């Protein structure tokens, strides 16, 4: 188990404000919109142009020590992709990128989603290492690798 999960307490919004990526007002507006039409905070901030996907990913890496992975330049073995079904990957916005023995490495947009990580562990029966990647990179990768299947 990753010790990192135990220290996750802060919400993503607070984290971004703290790191001066967005202002408090911008966060409030984004939360307002989320209340109205739903959706993920990161995506809303991105749509509003308050924070880029990369900014959010970097904030997560800096705060929690997850390594960042520019997925666009990364080749994944087909064998590895098959460890997690597509619907699980697209729902949680993650993709397996490497597997060595009983260690599975995944890239995900929100490493704070512990339940998603538990599900990946449940499915793969491996212990999971996490890289952070931007949501659009992950979606592109899912498109690319699961289409090839």
């Amino acid at each position, binding site marked *: 188990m990753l010790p990192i999960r135990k220290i996750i307490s802060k919400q993503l919004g607070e984290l971004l404000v703290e790191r001066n990526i967005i202002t408090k007002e911008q966060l409030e507006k984004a939360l307002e919109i989320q209340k109205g039409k*739903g*959706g*993920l905070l990161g995506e809303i901030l991105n749509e509003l142009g308050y924070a880029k996907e990369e900014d959010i990913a970097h904030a997560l890496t800096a705060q929690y020590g997850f390594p960042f992975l520019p997925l666009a330049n990364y080749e994944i073995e087909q064998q590895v992709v098959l460890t997690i*079904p597509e*619907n*699980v990957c697209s*729902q*949680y*916005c993650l993709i397996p990128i490497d597997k060595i023995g009983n260690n599975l490495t995944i890239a995900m947009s*929100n490493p704070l*989603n512990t*339940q*998603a990580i*538990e*599900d990946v562990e*449940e*499915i793969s029966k491996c212990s999971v290492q996490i890289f952070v990647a931007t949501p659009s990179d992950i979606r592109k990768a899912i498109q690319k690798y699961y289409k090839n299947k």
Partner: protein
Amino acid sequence: MVNVKEFSLLNKSLRHKLRVAFYLMSLIPLITCITLFIIYYNNISVNAWSFWEMFISISVSFIIAILGFLVAKQIVDPIIEINAEVKSITRGDLNRRLSFDREDEIGDLSSSLNQLVERIRNNMDELRNYGEKTKQINYEINRRVVLLSGLLEISNLITKGTSLREIFDISIGKLSELQDASWGCIVLQNEDKTFRIEASYGLDEHTVEDLKHDLGLKVMDYVLLNKQGVIINKDYSEKEVVVLRERFGTDNIMLCPIFEHGRIIGFVGVGSLQKEATFAKEDLEIVLIFAKQIAIALENEYLINRLQKLEIKDTLTGLYNKNFIINRLQEEIRRAIIYQRPCSFVLLSIDKFKDFSSTYGVLATEAALKKIATILESGITDIDRVARYGDFEFAIVLPDKNKKHSVNFANQLRVKVAEYFSQEDDAKKRLTICGAVSENPIDGSNAKDLISKAENFLNIARQKENTIIDKL
């Protein structure tokens, strides 16, 4: 020429015959006796009267007296005979005729009696005809009463919430009791303009199949023109009618529309193979009432269905019902996909509950179900939803809980139930539950997939008892 008949006594009246008989029997012998007495007393030329002469004259008198008796008998005999005949007529033998072909009073009397009997017989025949007619009217009234009581019966069934199928079957049964009815059908239109035969009798397979398609359309078109119902017989020469008569193979047809919210959605048809018979207006009225009853039953069914869709709670346990929980699961899965969260579905079943139910009866069964419902309800959080899923099955939707958490959660509930019932003295009353957990996204991305997975897992769990299964 001398008419012999004029000398015959046969044609003379009774009075005349009576007089002759009287003369013959009394006056002539009397005169003979007196003459003989005078002759004998005065001894007038006694020699001239020998014994033989006396004997002859007495004999002649005697014969004359016998003739008189015969004449009298001729008067009395027919009367006795008439008496016997009349007696037999009064006993009810009205076909008997008096055959006294005579020209005297007896002849008159017998012909008068014959006329009287004839008249009585005519009257009797007329009475019998009336009786026959009354019987027929009574029969007709009786049949109407039976039909109307049939309508009442259908009303009762509708209010009792009997199934539509049964109501259709009973309606067609009652329609078949209409006089001269040889076939009948209750037909409703589908969304796609085809028809479904809800009930029919007396129609061959070919016609029934036709009714589902173009024949149904033809009838429907004609019914749309005759919204008050219509009686067709061989006097109708409209083109449409002739086609219908040919297709059904019957001259006499009654058609009534079935309305729903002012719209015609089908029809009731009744036909007669009897060439001569034609349906009466009263028959049509009865069929119209049947059509209305069917419309009421359909409306009722529609409202009950709607109500059931609107109902979200199980009446016994107060938990949500199956419909609700399935819809809720679908909603929660949609939410989970948007927010990149998991969502779980738990099915729970009471172990060996059929045995429990048959051993301890309805009250104990209901009490146990209620108790388990309470335990489940008190164990879940505000965002979770628990429902009665089957006779002794429960379902829980756990938003934002992945499989691992949900299995833990289900196990907690399982232990709580087992603990509660473990205090029972009777080992058979120590109820336990088994369960199954499926999760979105692992087991699927829609309610249908999660439910079918959970049901599969539950089948395994049922065999193991007091356990939670989350994979095959």
